[in-house]
């Protein structure tokens, strides 16, 4: 019964989505206020019905209803309750439902916080979001119904893939989807602006906070995925250039470019058509990512159930959305070019370079991801493009990007006086170059060209992003301090600097050792000794494991004990690695069990990973910068006005 209620709620949501997708657009065209108003009501109703459907699916998981095919395939009686909840979005059907729920939540947020926008504009935005929702709901109902029944019911489920039985992976998809789907708001704003043919600087101001919000969630989502891969897959790497990772990384790169180009459009009215194109591209890449992951067109470690019908459906949907958007763009964009000029040495120039480099980076990632497919179709056989290619190719746009970043931050709009520019940046630049060579020598006893470039670039970004906040702290009383959006920018760039430092140090000084150990054996890695004290059997709720007790010492002195495990999950019978990690802020010591070698010996991988935490910490700081920027007063005004309007409405009623 409960699954049928969910199914029914989804169908009702589809009918509301059709109303939301058609009426406000027609209303905006005819200037009919009542029709435009339907968008808000329909958005609320649609959200409620999709939430009911999502609740029904969750309930089916919690009550172990194995007559629902999706539940039978992805859950099990002995599965811990928290994973029964996260199993809802562990595979294609449920994660698509979550995707729709998040789209509805974004839509609802837009309809609540759009009182500042002209009614015609917000009606068009809601209309576009409604049409997108129609596509996804049809996709779910026609090809990927999560409520399909299984008859006769299974006695027990096939269990959730053990890889996904992890707290990090439980919250990674929701964050990632909030980011992915969030770009649909920027997309809808762009389409609405092009439909009305009226694209002024206000448009950029309205779009900015939504884009930044989506971007910060995407940042956190990608960071969590990277962290999970690090401790769960047992290789100790943090980024693998897997097609699915790339699928989330391309929208991130374009989204980052979009945030920067929106700044130019808002402040100076420039780059309008370019910004529109980026807004379309960011969301299109989110759709393309969905397609790549769920159609099975590209082989990836992320095993999503694949089905050619689904592939064709998404491809058709993606084709309609992107082609329509770009056709509209080709029609409208030519009239948007502005003839405002800017000096060669100006913030506009640097933001243009930022955009070019980020787009080049995204294009390289796209090419690397699609290359195996292209070559296979040209009968070139099966090839795989691995991390070595990406690591080299990606550095080409990234090195200039991080070096220019520090300069751009301190360059004025329109034109910048070269002398004062040099005066501000001289000291941080010299400090970064010197420390970039000296610090690695001091702490790790070695330096080199790439190492100095990376370390220096990281320091350069950190130092130059501290200038403005520090000045604001030391300012005279009564003078205006730094704005939230400038502070947000500084903080996000600081995070980028920490990230660059982390990546540089861990790739230069990572030590890795694979050895066969029996209890009592010791290996030395760097200054650290790892002694395997014992091997024992451990029972978990739905797995049994072999656990090694490894004592870590530094120059003979006891530091910590870690307990890496090799788990066998009882239903699916596959083996999982749980790494034992002893982490401090500036390094990780990582122990993972490999394979049993006989005679009580195990292959053990031991790694010393200096500053690896900076990678994820840097990403969190970047996201925090986004949050600070969104809280800027310019955007907050809107919420206050909204509540004033709300109160006035209540009083008058």
């Amino acid at each position: 019964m409960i699954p049928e209620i969910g199914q029914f709620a989804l169908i009702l949501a589809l009918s509301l989505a059709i109303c939301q997708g058609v009426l406000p657009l027609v209303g905006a065209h005819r200037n009919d206020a009542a029709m435009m108003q339907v968008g808000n009501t329909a958005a609320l109703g649609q959200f409620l019905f999709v939430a009911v459907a999502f609740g029904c699916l969750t309930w089916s998981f919690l009550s172990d209803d194995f007559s629902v095919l999706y539940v039978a395939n992805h859950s099990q009686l002995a599965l811990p309750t928290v994973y029964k909840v996260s199993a809802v979005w562990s595979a294609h059907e449920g994660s698509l439902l979550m995707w729709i729920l998040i789209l509805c939540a974004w839509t609802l947020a837009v309809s609540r916080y759009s009182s500042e926008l002209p009614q015609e504009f917000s009606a068009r935005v809601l209309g576009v979001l409604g049409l997108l929702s129609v596509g996804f709901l049809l996709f779910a109902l026609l090809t990927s119904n999560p409520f399909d029944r299984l008859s006769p019911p299974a006695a027990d489920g096939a269990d959730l893939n053990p890889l996904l039985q992890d707290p990090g992976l439980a919250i990674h998809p929701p964050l990632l989807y909030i980011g992915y789907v969030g770009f649909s708001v920027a997309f809808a704003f762009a389409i609405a602006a092009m439909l009305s043919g009226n694209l002024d600087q206000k448009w950029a101001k309205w779009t900015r906070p939504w884009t930044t919000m989506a971007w910060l969630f995407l940042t956190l989502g990608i960071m969590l995925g990277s962290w999970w891969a690090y401790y769960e897959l047992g290789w100790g790497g943090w980024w693998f250039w897997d097609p699915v990772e790339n699928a989330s990384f391309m929208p991130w790169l374009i989204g980052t470019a979009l945030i920067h180009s929106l700044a130019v459009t808002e402040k100076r009215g420039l780059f309008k058509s370019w910004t529109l194109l980026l807004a379309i591209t960011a969301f299109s890449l989110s759709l393309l990512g969905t397609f790549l992951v769920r159609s099975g067109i590209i082989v990836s470690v992320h095993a999503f159930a694949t089905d050619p019908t689904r592939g064709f459906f998404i491809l058709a949907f993606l084709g309609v959305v992107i082609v329509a958007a770009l056709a509209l763009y080709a029609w409208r964009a030519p009239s948007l070019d502005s003839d405002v000029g800017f000096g060669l040495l100006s913030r506009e120039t640097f933001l243009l370079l930022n955009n070019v480099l980020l787009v080049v980076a995204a294009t390289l990632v796209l090419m690397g991801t699609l290359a195996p497919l292209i070559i296979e179709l040209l009968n070139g056989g099966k090839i795989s493009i691995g991390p070595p290619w990406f690591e080299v190719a990606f550095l080409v746009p990234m090195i200039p990007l991080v070096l220019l970043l520090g300069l751009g931050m301190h360059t004025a709009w329109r034109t910048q006086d070269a002398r004062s520019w040099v005066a501000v940046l001289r000291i941080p630049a010299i400090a970064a170059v010197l420390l970039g060579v000296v610090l690695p020598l001091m702490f790790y006893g070695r330096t080199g060209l790439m190492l100095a470039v990376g370390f220096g670039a990281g320091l350069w970004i950190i130092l130059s992003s501290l200038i403005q906040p520090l000045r604001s702290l030391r300012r005279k009383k009564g003078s205006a301090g730094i704005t939230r959006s400038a502070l947000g920018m500084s903080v996000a760039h600081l995070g980028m600097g920490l990230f660059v430092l982390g990546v540089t140090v861990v790739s230069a000084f990572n030590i890795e050792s694979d050895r066969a150990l029996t209890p009592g054996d010791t290996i030395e890695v760097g200054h650290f000794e790892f002694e395997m004290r014992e091997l024992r059997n451990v029972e978990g709720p739905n797995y049994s494991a072999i656990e090694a007790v490894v004592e870590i010492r530094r120059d003979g002195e006891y530091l910590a004990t870690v307990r890496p495990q090799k788990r066998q999950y009882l239903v699916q019978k596959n083996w999982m690695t749980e790494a034992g990690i002893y982490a401090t802020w500036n390094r990780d010591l990582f122990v993972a069990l490999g394979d049993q070698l006989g005679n009580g010996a195990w292959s053990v991988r031991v790694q010393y990973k200096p500053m690896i935490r900076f990678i994820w910490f840097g990403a969190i700081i970047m996201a925090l910068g986004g949050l600070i920027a969104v809280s800027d007063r310019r955007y907050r005004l809107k919420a206050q006005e909204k509540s004033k309007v709300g109160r006035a409405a209540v009083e008058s009623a």
Partner: protein
Amino acid sequence: MSRYLLPLVAVIGLILFLVVGLKRGDPRALPSPYIGKPAPEFELPKLKDPEQTVGSKDLSGQLALVNVWATWCVGCRAEHPFLLELEANDTIPIYGINWRDTRPEALRWIQQLGDPYVASGFDGSGRVGIDWGVYGAPETFLVSADGIVLHKHLGPLDRASWESDFLPLINGEGSMQ
């Protein structure tokens, strides 16, 4: 105008290309690399009598099912009645691989629930399971008279999948002989 059309043209090209990519079919082409290939050779001690063995030699010359089962597996309990029914109707000989189990528990299971198998091999270490690419119990393989794997079924066997997946293959084999 033309430069504003460029993104549109590029995207249409990309989409056409992806259509071609999809048409080529699933690159992973599961379910099993063994399908259409000779079944892996095996020889295991019999569950009921460790002195004797059961293996590839017993399978050859007849169409047979090889069923991977274990007492700890709930799905195996679910499919057990259906296997007994197949056996009672003399549909097809069923050989068992008792996988990652203990002998006393497996013997008790057969005593209590009935024995649908011509013979079960005891694979306590899971060694033969690895050769056969077993992913999780229960799994059922359909092996032809000349030792070719015709089909692999994941999870509990039931009437619906029997009729849709196994029967057409069995009838096809019968008409060929």
